[in-house]
């Protein structure tokens, strides 16, 4: 039983990243140095338009940076997680894990 003064794990969740695609983008970018837009859309199984909308939200929040360049003649958009993005991802995963563990503890109780 948690004490009344203890913060509920949902208080640690971040509205901006608490979403499958946005959390997926940060998960991939926190493991890698950078990834292309097309890699993310394929890995997360989302359309370009859908991904673009989520990337815009993350970029506006300062969690990812976007670099447009070329490989040969082909345009290529690279995305990177910012330091803030990596920290936010770690905090979100910790809050989410705590929440799921708490729920599993509750549901397993007699």
């Amino acid at each position: 039983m948690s004490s009344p003064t203890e913060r509920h794990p949902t208080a640690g969740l971040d509205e901006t990243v608490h979403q499958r695609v946005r959390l997926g983008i940060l998960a991939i970018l926190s493991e890698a140095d950078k990834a292309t837009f097309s890699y993310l859309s394929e890995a997360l199984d989302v359309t370009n338009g859908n991904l673009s909308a989520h990337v815009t939200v993350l970029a506006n929040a300062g969690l990812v940076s976007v670099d447009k360049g070329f490989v040969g003649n082909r345009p290529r958009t690279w995305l990177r997680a910012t330091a803030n993005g990596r920290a936010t991802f770690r905090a979100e995963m910790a809050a989410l894990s705590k929440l799921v563990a708490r729920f599993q503890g509750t549901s397993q109780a007699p």
Partner: protein
Amino acid sequence: MALERSSDKQLLDSVESARRRTRSVLSTNWFPMILFGLLALVSVAVYQVWSWQAMAALWVVGAPIAGLATGFWYRSRANEIGISVNPIPYTITSIAIFVGCIALGIAGRGDALSYAGPVMVIGLGYVAFAVLDKSPLNAVFGAVIAAVGVAVLAVRPSHAYAVTMLLFGIGAVVLGLWNLLQSRRAR
């Protein structure tokens, strides 16, 4: 409430799965494993047929060329698949291995340290690469190679160079082929 928490569990699982897949894609390292393994095996032949100096020259010239080839391979692979790791820790580790091997090779003056020292440095370097790649298998391989270097320094067996480099070369080629097989399966 229960439904919300169940979707949180699904969210957590899907994120963990994305992380695992990304790690698997990023830990593809068959090219440098096979290349440096073959270089080690060739160096044994050069040492046996020619001389210690010829073998040392092969490493001094061959290792930087193999290192550059590895850099180009990682770069072209990153452009091809669209994801890459930060190259700086890998480059620093590679340079540290090269400098460490040369320094201990010279400091040993042809004695056991000339053979065992570089083997220990290579082993520790592979442990560092394994930490960067989050690869327990490669960490074990690196630790075994480093331990072999320590054993060679303690026991000083005959044919120390051939024994250690055959072990390293065969191990690296086998692990490289295993990694190649895994990366083909994952596609």
